[in-house]
Structures are given as C-alpha cells and as structure tokens.
C-alpha cells in the first residue's frame, strides 16, 4: 500500500477546515444545552446560515458581510425557536425538529437561482513568523479568520463555564430552573440569550460550509452536519475541549477516508464512508466511560419546559 501520496501536514490542516462548521455549531448547542434548552434545529439553522451567507456574498462580493449575515440568518431561525418554546412553552423536541425541516425547505427555496455559482474566496490569514515554522506552520497558522475564531471560541466557552459568574448562572438555570427562578434569575431571558447565541454559531458554521469548505451552494448541503454536532455535544459530556477533539477526529477521519478511497484501497466504500461516524462516537464513548459522576452528567433541566412558579 502506498501512503506517500498523502501529505500529512496538509491533511491535518484541511481536517481543521473540515471540522470547523461542526465545531462552531456544536459549541453553540453546548451553551444552549447548558442552560437547559435542547434545540434539535441545529441542522436547520446551519443550512439557513449557509444560504444567507452565500446569497449576500454573491450579491455584495464581500465574504465578511456574508459571514455576518449567515450568523444573522442563524439568529433569525433561532429566534423562532426561542419564541415558540420559551414564550408559548411548546415542546422543545417537536419545535426543534420543525425548525430543521423549515430551515432545509426554506433554504432550498431561497437558493434556487444560486446553484452552481462560485462565491468570492475568503482569504487565509498567514500569521507572520509562526506560519513559516515547518509542519506546525502549515497545520496551525495558515488558516482563515473563522478557523482562528472557532478555536478562540472554544477557549471562550471554557472560560465562561469555568470561571465567569454569568456562566455559573447559565449552568444554574440548566440544572434547576425552578431554583434559579426562586433566587430571582430570569430563566426565560437567559435561555433566550443562549438560544440566539446557539443560532449565531450554527449559522456561522453553515456559512463556513458554503463559503469556504465546499465552496458553493447545493440543496441540503449540510448533509447531517447539524445532527453530528448535536451528538458531539452529548458524547463530549458538555465540555468544550472534548468537543474540539471530537470535531477534529470527525473531520480527520472524513478526509482520511476520502483520501483512502482515492487511493483505490480494497475496502468497501460504504464501510469507509461510515468510519468517521463510528470512530468519533467510539472515541467519545471511551472518553466519557470513565466519567466522574458529579461533573459530567447532562444538565438536569435539559429539554424541560419552564412554567414559572
């Protein structure tokens, strides 16, 4: 077998690119779930973000504006979910599924005349000096802004829940919304915020897919990335760094199996295609198997509707 055709530092660099949409969407969902909201509409928010960003980039030729609008698209969809579940107290699972279906359908409608177009390319930002280090430079320091942002966001979310007072309040709301309410915290307002934040990050992830990763628009192009993001949150035990590892493993195996397919390896293609899912879940299950019983459980109020006292 000849693996010399695969350049490993390029492979790692591109796995980071491949993983970024999932990482962003999963981070947003993590924050929402920490506050006790289970939003199954990640897929819908992602693809709506993808088409919003794509249309704006094509029309204005400005990818920065495109990314901004993909976030806004995600927020718009998330705000529907927030109003329905937090104000009208609808069931979160049903509302989330509806949101996904709505996002898929509506984005297909909007995107009809944009199929096959190519957006303006989004520039990479080579970080001076660091980018010239052999191997590591290629892997880490020759990416675009969104990749850096996604990694920064992982640290930010970690800091939020580890150190900050606001993060503690979000956790409290997710653990026991009745207690949080009794102490005088505005459960609905906090959840509104986390849902919208989740929407912004999912939309940005979707935008990254249509503007950088692919880059063009096809109907249903998220192809389950939103669902993978949802699963990652659970298997990563709601911890941002595990989420990062999970997303990168998933991105890595996806690319590796594509490379292996290109090499004409004599393994069934179906097996190769399912390998990213199997390996990611396998690794995360292994990591969470030795869980400490207190710190790693799901937020207790996850998915429950808050009715007030």
């Amino acid at each position: 077998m000849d693996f010399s055709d695969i350049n490993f530092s390029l492979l790692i660099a591109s796995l980071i690119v491949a993983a970024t949409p999932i990482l962003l969407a999963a981070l947003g969902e993590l924050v929402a779930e920490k506050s006790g909201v289970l939003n199954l509409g990640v897929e819908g928010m992602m693809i709506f973000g993808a088409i919003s960003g794509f249309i704006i980039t094509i029309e204005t030729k400005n990818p920065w504006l495109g990314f901004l609008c993909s976030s806004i698209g995600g927020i718009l969809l998330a705000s529907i979910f927030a109003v329905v579940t937090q104000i009208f107290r609808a069931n979160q699972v049903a509302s989330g599924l509806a949101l996904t279906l709505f996002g898929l359908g509506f984005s297909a409608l909007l995107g009809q005349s944009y199929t096959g177009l190519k957006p303006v390319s989004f520039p990479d930002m080579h970080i001076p000096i660091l980018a010239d280090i052999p191997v590591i430079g290629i892997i880490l320091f020759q990416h675009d802004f969104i990749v850096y942002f996604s990694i920064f966001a992982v640290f930010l979310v970690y800091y939020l829940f580890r150190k900050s007072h606001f993060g503690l309040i979000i956790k409290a709301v997710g653990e026991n919304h009745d207690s949080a309410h009794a102490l005088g915290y505005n459960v609905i307002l906090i959840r509104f915020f986390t849902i919208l934040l989740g929407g912004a990050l999912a939309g940005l992830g979707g935008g990254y897919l249509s503007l950088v990763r692919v880059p063009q628009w096809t109907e249903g192009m998220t192809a389950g990335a939103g669902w993978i993001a949802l699963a990652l949150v659970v298997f990563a035990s709601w911890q941002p760094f595990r989420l990062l590892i999970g997303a990168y493993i998933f991105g890595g195996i996806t690319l590796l199996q594509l490379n292996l397919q290109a090499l004409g390896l004599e393994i069934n293609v179906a097996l190769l295609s399912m390998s990213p899912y199997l390996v990611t879940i396998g690794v995360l299950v292994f990591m969470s198997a030795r869980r400490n019983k207190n710190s790693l459980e799901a937020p207790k109020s996850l998915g429950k509707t808050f009715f007030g006292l």
Partner: protein
Amino acid sequence: MSDKGTILKIKDISKEYPSVKANDSVSLDLEYGKIQALLGENGAGKSTLVKIIYGLVKPDSGRMYLNDMEYRPKGPQDARSKGVGMVFQHFSLFDALSVFENIVLGLDNILEKKELQKQIIDVSSEYGLSISLDKIVGNLSAGERQRIEIIRCLLLNPKIMIMDEPTSVLTPGEVSDLFLVLKKLSKSGMSILYISHKLEEIRTICTKATIMRRGRVVKNCDPQKISATKIAEEMVGTSFSSPKKSKIKKGKECLQINNLSFQPSDPFGIPIKNLNLKLHHGEIIGIGGVAGNGQEEFLSLLSGELKPSNGSLFFNDEDITKLNVVERRNKGILSAPEERLGHAAVPAMSLTENCLITAEHRMKLSKRGLIDYTISKNLSDRIIKKLDVRTGGSDALARSLSGGNLQKFVIGRELIQNPKIFIVNQPTWGVDAAAASSIRQQILDLAKEGTGIIVISQDLDELLEISDVFCALVGGQLSSPEMTNELNPSRLGMLISNSIE
C-alpha cells in the same frame, strides 16, 4: 429582650388564582427579634403569603410596610436588598454545583472569591454552621444542604428571615442544632417567620403563632400557652380524635428477609447492605430514618420493582425472591410507595383506572383481557367512601385531587384488597392532621385483622404512635429491631443518626 415593636406589617393582602382564593385579606405583624410561627395545613395559603413577602408573587390587593415604609418588592433580588431573606426547603439548591457556587448564586453583588470565602467562614463559625466549600451539593445530607441555605441567607445581613418547613427533612439531632442557631439569631435582633405544621417544635421555639386556614388568618396566639390539640383543631377547623392502638397478639411469622443487599446503578442511589428482618402477622414494624437513606430502595426490593443483588425473601416459608411485582401482588404482598403522583398513581388517569393498575388481578377486574369497568368503578367508589376521599367522583383525574386526598385513595386502594403483607412508605407525608390520623387508624385496623405491616416514615411521632417494633434505616443499613414502647427520645435520636458518622 427588648420589644421594639413591629418590623413587617402586612395589611389585607389578597391573591386569587383561577381555581382558588389563596390569600383572602391576610394581615400579620412580625415583631423585632422574635421567632414567629405561621401555621396551617397544606393549601392554607402559607406558601403564597411567603412568596408575596419575598417578591416571587405579586398580590392582587393589600399593602405591606417594612419599618413603617411602604414595602412592595419587585422581585426576590429587591426583597433581599431590603433585608428580607428566605430559606427554602425544596427548590433552591443545584445538585451538580459545589457548595461555594451555590452560595455565590444566591448573592447579588459579586465579590472576590477570597473575600467571599473569608465572609462565609466568618459567618459559619459565628453561628456554628460548619460546611466545606468544595463539596458537590448532590452528595450532601439534608442538614448540610440547609446549612448552605442559611449561610447564603445570612451573608446578606437580613433583618427578616423566612423559613419554609425547615425541619421536615432533618434528623432530631439536626433539628436541635438548627434551633440553637435560630435562638442565637433572634437574640441578635433578627426576626424569623417560621412556617411549619409540626406543632411540638413550634411550641418549643416560637412565642407567637398565626394560624391560617383556607387563605384566611383564623387566629393569633401564643403557642406555648395553648395545647397542641387546640392548635391542630384551629388549623383543620374541626375536632378529630387521634388513632387508638389496641393490643394485638403477634401471629405466625409471615415475611422473612435474609441478608438482603442491593447495588444501585444510579450514581446517587443508595446501596442496601445485608438487611435482615422478620415480620409477623398482626405486627407493625416502623422503619425510621431521614429520606434518602435507602427507604425507596427498600420498598422497591420488597414490592419486586428492584431485584436484590444478594439475599433472599421468604413469604410464609415460600421463597419469593425471584417473583416479579404482579406475582407478589397476587400472593397478597401489597405496597404503597412514597411518591403519590407518578409512582403510586398516574396523574393523567382517572381514579378508576388508577385502581385497575394495582388491583386488576387480585380483585379480578378484568376477564379474558377485557376490563370490566362496572366492577372497577364500584371498587373505586367503595375506596372513596371507606376513606372519605374528597373528590368529584371515581372519574376524576388523579392529579385533580389534593395531596392528602390522593394519599387516602392510594392507601385505600391497597387496604381494600385484603393484603397479607402491606408495605407503605411515608403514609402521611404532606397530609393534613385529620386525614393523617384517619390513615393511621386504617393501618392499625388492618393489623388487627392479622396483616403484617411495614411502615417506613420520617415522622418519628407517627412510628411511635402506631408501630410495635422500631428499626432505623441509615445509609442503607438497618438497626436491630427494638420494641417501640421501650424506646425513649434520646435512644431514638441515637438510632436515627447513629451510623451517619
């Protein structure tokens, strides 16, 4: 003690909910440096009143004055900033967070971690409330949890502290510790509004009591000057008799528990360790102890919901260890778990349907897989009549009943099936005094007919009143049985708190 007058004056507060008038022009004066009781049955409107004072609920009409200034809290934060603190009983701690994080969440101004830690240590040593800050709250005992709540409240230097049923989950030792703290606090000038329906403890620490019934204040009195029975009658509105225990001869052995052990898969579950017990016909064994020491697991092991990891169960010399719930029920081993809604009864189903759930086989309510609704309805009507369950009828949904009435129904449902053995957890939890005494009487009557009964309860007075033999269940271990009539309070307290250390 100086009597400086009234700190909080409540005038004509009313609050109406769609189905009930929770507060009907309630007036109350809280005095400086006093521990004052607010008494009443469940649903008398105590909780609503307290939530109004703490700013969680807005009253429809009426006024409040704090130090002669109009007091109209916008929310709990506002109430806290004006010096009104509250110690909740059930719902204000977060299990998955640490003690320190829980305290921080209850404060309004954010301090440096070190500074706050120092303050917490100061307060806890001043009042003898020891606590370790890094522990996860989910692993703490009820007494320790309460200490967190009290510390959190004291850090805000409140002038008024509201305590909602503070002793309902504590061991006798923890209760006397709490009382010491409360006395210290009141001496330092704090006013405490103490909510409870336990009359004896109110008589020991409160000097003034306000009794509420159906949303109205019915009486203000000094609880140390009138008898507990008199207070109880005011709370209920009628007089009632306490259950009478008649001498019963102990019959043959009917249940033998040998080395019963259980290892839970739930991380917060309690393992049961090597439990041995013998139950005779006509005997009532009382199992005391604070909830969360294996009571639920014990009942589930006997009812057949849980399978033991070790040990065996014999019913009249027959091995029933491997029998499931239905098989045990068919033999006459019936049980009533603690959780009324969700475990003992299905909230969204009618009383008749709930009756079918446990009585279907034993009372032959179905034929060839088809339910006979006429017989079932008759049976549930009989239960309603026998236990005086106040409800619209057997078609009413279980969740529409008040806690006490549903409890009567759930117990009655088992009693009517002529059990050979009856196991019940918390038979009178959250039930008003009159209903509680009628449930206890029913249990005593059942024993008279020769049924072996195990009563699991946190209410020690209840166990002393009805049981023949007493054991304490602490940390999943059972103390050796002792005759109830030979027990004194200090021995009892020792048994309950013994193996905690």
